[in-house]
């Protein structure tokens, strides 16, 4: 009866051992108590013994390899029995992400660097990051000049410009900038920031996109008044449905009606996808990733909202499985919450299009010859010209606009 040989615990502090030398080789007979290998432990080099009789059928660990206590190093059995069931499984190609640490809100890199030299309470740093207040320009009223909550609150209240805080007599400003220049002269010219794996992947994929794919761009301005009213009303009910959730639903329904946009260029033909899976771009500290909301056209708004939120959280916690960020048929990127009015996004291959959504703004609009106030949102569609033409893209956008301007059509 064949059995696995595992790395034994040869001292009570031992966690892993290194096989220095196999004393018995594959094919050698071995008896209980005979030396099987020389193993280097944390304390010494010892000979490990075999605990069964038989033939050494397979050496699983190589000489020089570190093996954790309890992991398999060999198989001992009779000369001809089938040992395929005792061989270790091939190593998992995609190691499961370690449990995410408690999530701290992402502090922009320069703010975090500032925090290392400035004293600021964690709450003050978070408030500064969320509201865009420049910590470097603040004088803290806490002990040792610590910037604290009330300093951020007063900075926001006084409506001061982003430049270093008030009392700006010209002379002090000039000397401050002189000091800054001198300090900068002494500092290194630039800083090399290593590419994170995410950054590297983005760089590679988008060159593959922007290069070969002939992009064209169509922008439409959508009257979001009805959606905005509904969104505010839902907010009062403590719902967490967001504008982006509504955009996702409208886009999914529009794609159902325009299968020529829900497609992919496949060299000598165009593949039209039967289902609608929306990739939503989520910003990470060092890049972005697009988790996929599958069958978004079939899901009601609450479900889209809950799923979008979960996917975004898991994306930021780096817990997404590959199946969760692949398979999109169309992507949406929304920079509205960061105040961007409009922008053009780069298509994620193998998709044929991507929608870039801007902020909902309250603006003066002309309606029937009268100027009034309305809510407008710009959306820019990037399209792969090999798959669809301007007219197709425009028709899709018209449908999208119709859904967003008459939300009941989405019910």
């Amino acid at each position, binding site marked *: 009866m064949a059995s696995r040989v595992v790395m034994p615990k040869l001292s009570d502090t031992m966690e892993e051992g290194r096989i220095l030398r196999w004393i018995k080789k594959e094919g050698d007979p071995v008896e209980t108590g005979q030396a099987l290998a020389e193993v280097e432990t944390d304390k010494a080099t010892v000979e490990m013994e075999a605990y069964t009789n038989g033939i050494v059928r397979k050496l699983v660990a190589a000489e020089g390899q570190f093996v954790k206590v309890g992991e398999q190093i060999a198989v001992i059995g009779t000369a001809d029995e089938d040992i395929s069931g005792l061989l270790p499984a091939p190593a998992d190609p995609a190691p499961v992400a370690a449990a995410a640490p*408690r999530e*701290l*809100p992402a502090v922009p890199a320069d703010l975090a660097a500032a925090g290392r030299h400035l004293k600021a*309470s*964690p*709450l*003050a*740093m*978070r408030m500064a990051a969320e509201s865009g207040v420049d910590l470097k320009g603040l004088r803290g*009223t*806490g*002990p040792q000049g610590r910037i*604290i*909550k*009330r300093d951020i609150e007063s900075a926001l209240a006084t409506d001061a410009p982003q430049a270093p805080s008030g009392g700006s007599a010209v002379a002090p400003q000039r000397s401050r900038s002189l000091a800054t220049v001198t300090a900068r002269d002494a500092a290194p010219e630039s800083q090399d920031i290593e590419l994170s794996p995410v950054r590297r992947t983005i760089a590679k994929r988008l060159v593959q996109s922007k290069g070969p794919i002939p992009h064209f761009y169509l922008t439409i301005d959508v009257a979001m008044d009805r959606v905005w009213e509904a969104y505010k009303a839902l907010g009062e009910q403590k719902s967490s449905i967001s504008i982006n959730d509504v955009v996702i639903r409208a886009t999914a329904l529009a794609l159902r009606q325009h299968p020529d946009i829900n497609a992919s260029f496949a060299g000598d033909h165009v593949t039209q996808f039967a289902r609608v899976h929306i990739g939503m771009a989520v910003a990470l500290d060092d890049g972005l990733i697009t988790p996929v909301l599958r069958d978004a056209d079939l899901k009601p708004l609450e479900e889209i909202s809950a799923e979008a939120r979960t996917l975004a959280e898991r994306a930021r916690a780096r817990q997404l499985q590959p199946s969760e960020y692949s398979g999109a048929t169309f992507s949406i990127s929304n920079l509205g919450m960061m105040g961007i009015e409009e922008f053009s996004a780069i298509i994620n291959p193998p998709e044929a299009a991507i929608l870039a959504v801007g902020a909902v703004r309250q603006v003066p609009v002309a309606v029937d010859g009268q100027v009034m106030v309305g809510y407008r949102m710009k959306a820019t569609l990037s399209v792969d010209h090999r798959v669809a033409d301007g007219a197709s893209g425009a028709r899709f956008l018209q449908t999208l606009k119709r859904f967003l301007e008459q939300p009941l059509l989405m019910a």
Partner: protein
Amino acid sequence: MPLITYRDALNQALREELRRDPNVFLMGEEVGVYQGAYKVSKGLLQEFGERRIVDTPITEEGFTGVGIGAAMVGLRPVIEMMTWNFSLLAMDQIINGAAKMLYMSGGQFHIPIVVRGPGGAAHQLAAQHSQSIESWYAHVPGLKVVAPSTPYDAKGLLKSAIRDDDPVIFFEGETLYGSKGEVPAEDYTIPIGVADIKREGTDVTLVAWSKMVSVAMKAAETLAAEGISCEIVDPRSLRPFDDEPILASVRKTNRCVIVEEGWPYAGLGAQIAYQIQQTAFSDLDAPVTRVTGADVPMPYARNLEHMAMPSPARVVAAVREVLYLD
């Protein structure tokens, strides 16, 4: 609702549980004929007799060990420590016996024992009889540790402790026995592992248990007159520890002061502060602060004893510090 003393609340809990379950019995020094060193077991010998209310010699290790053995064969002992200071003699039984038996027996032996008694300082009991050592027991996996601050909490938690199948370490307080509070006449229990908000507020979170709750309350009243609103969270159970109400409070107030009677170094306050900064780091506007007993053996002299204990004034000063006032 009836207004009764903490002592009577415990007495009621013991009486009700002794009536409810014939396996429950009380054992300790002076619990029977003397009616209890602090009269917590008053009248119980008369009602339940010598088999259920057992007077012991002065041998904490001995009678605690006997209790553990009794628990292993299906009885439900309540072991009284005249004060928790004397439990030092029984610690091997409590920790190596009671706490670990379930684990070491592979789940075969539950130890449904309650060890209860007053902890902390009273008045001039001096170095060996004034110790607050709940952190020593909270440190041990396999124990539950509870420290009620009010008669209501005391009765509900003692009943839960007696009904619990695992060892429960129950900290009372000599100066708490006479305190009064409302306690319902009907049967109720309070689950172990659930904290209680003793006072709602918005400006600072105070964490306090046992005798320190009243210290925190007095500080809160002084601060309220200055326009500062304190929220007081009483964990009630020190292990398992319910940190969610404290974290929710810190998210609201952005600052926390922990008030504990024990010594500061490696005390429970240090553990609670760790938990707060670990989870609510970005909600903190000031470091988590503690007001603790002084890091000295308790002095005998009355004025020094007063200086060595947390007081409302020291709590007020700590609150003002985390609010960056003066």
